[in-house]
């Protein structure tokens, strides 16, 4: 067996150790979590015990910089993660606002599509909440909700709405994929990955319902637009694509 897993665990443990020892961050973390989560955390903190104190000393700067109590001017691991989390948060705000406006507009008459839109909206709102909390845990501040402009798309009717929804979700999936390897904290990575695949599910489903084939006609359409291997997009590429929707 490789010795590496030990390192993984010490990183994890030390991050949790910080949480355990810092009453303010712990309080905030616990408040953020539901009952089950809080119980789970308590269990985890107890399980990690005190036998890892020596490894805590070798904690990467990513972990120490990410605690709210430590504020450093220099960009660090926590800084990179905060940037990525805020980028994801902005995209999730955009998506959530889109579905909210679409549903409010009453333009979608098909009950099946309406139900899907509601279900996706719920997911996106949960992503917003979680990312906001994560940004704060990393020392904040969390990105502000952007002003959006979907009037033209919504006025375009159900077909345009569906096509835009599919593009936005494909963008979301490509955006998360583009950042995965840059994320420093394993916890933030795990969280981002669990959102990444949900965005991909949305994208595939919307494309299918929009009547797009596996490949689609444009790069961001199609249920499986890139073939067997998804293509990542950089922040610049994604922001270029979402610009029309930002007011």
């Amino acid at each position, binding site marked *: 067996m490789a010795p590496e897993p030990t390192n993984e665990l010490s990183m994890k443990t030390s991050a949790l150790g910080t949480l355990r020892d810092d009453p303010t961050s712990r309080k905030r973390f616990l408040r953020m979590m539901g009952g089950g989560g809080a119980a789970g955390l308590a269990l985890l903190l107890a399980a990690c015990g005190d036998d890892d104190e020596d490894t805590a000393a070798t904690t990467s700067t990513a972990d120490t910089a990410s605690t709210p109590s430590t504020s450093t001017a220099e960009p660090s691991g926590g800084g990179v993660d905060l940037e990525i989390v805020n980028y994801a948060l902005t995209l999730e705000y955009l998506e959530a606002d889109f579905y909210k406006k679409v549903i409010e507009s009453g333009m979608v008459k098909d009950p099946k599509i309406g139900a899907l839109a509601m279900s996706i909206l719920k997911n996106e709102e949960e992503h917003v909440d979680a990312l906001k909390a994560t940004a704060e845990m990393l020392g904040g501040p969390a990105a502000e909700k952007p002003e959006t402009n979907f009037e033209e798309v919504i006025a375009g009717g159900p077909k345009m709405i569906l096509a835009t929804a599919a593009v936005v979700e494909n963008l979301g999936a490509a955006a998360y994929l583009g950042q995965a390897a840059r994320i420093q904290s394993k916890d933030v990575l795990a969280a981002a990955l669990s959102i*990444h695949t949900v965005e991909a599910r949305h994208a595939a489903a919307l494309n299918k319902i929009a009547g797009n084939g596996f490949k689609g006609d444009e790069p961001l359409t199609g249920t499986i637009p890139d073939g067997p291997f998804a293509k990542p997009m950089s922040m610049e590429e994604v922001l270029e694509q979402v610009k029309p929707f930002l007011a």
Partner: protein
Amino acid sequence: MTHPQLTTPELAEIQVHGFTRSSFILRGALAAGTVYGMSAVSPFVGHALAQGGGGDVDILNFALTLEYLEATFYKEAVDKVSGLDGDTLKLTKQLRDDEVAHVDALTATIKKLGGEPVPAPKVDFGKAFASKAAYLKTANVFEDTGVSAYNGAAPMIENKDVLSAAGTIVQIEARHAALIRLARGKEPAPIAFDKTSTMDEVLTAVKPFIKS
């Protein structure tokens, strides 16, 4: 150190067991703590781990086993499931081709890292092809399990290139899962945060189909 004991879900729970925001930040930690603390290791994974040339190779061999399983599953489905109509047949062939491509890519990556790719497991899909509904239900399990397996293992990957490569595959697994779920009339993304599974949880889900 000890780890909180995760429950081993039944096959059916793989599809429905959701995670909420309350537990999502913890999951990475839980996965990291349990992946290498497996209590029950089946022979095929034991084989995979024994051949490993390091953490990444072990994870890739684990993924390769799953992809072999999926590829063989769809290959057989094309021939054995009666009543696959145009749309479902087209989807099945697409999934088969994607999984074969994943097998090839993982095999090549393992060799590149100096590891030895595991052989394809011997499989028996039992009654999974007895009807279109049974087939889609099993496909649903495979795809959702695939997503949770990659998501659970990915934070353990050390090489950033390998992590990116795994990401390009798991996104496709998620798309497959959504399409299969739609074909079943199910919600494509029933939970806001896809579940992560540890190796032994994944094993429990796929064990019924592995003969060796």
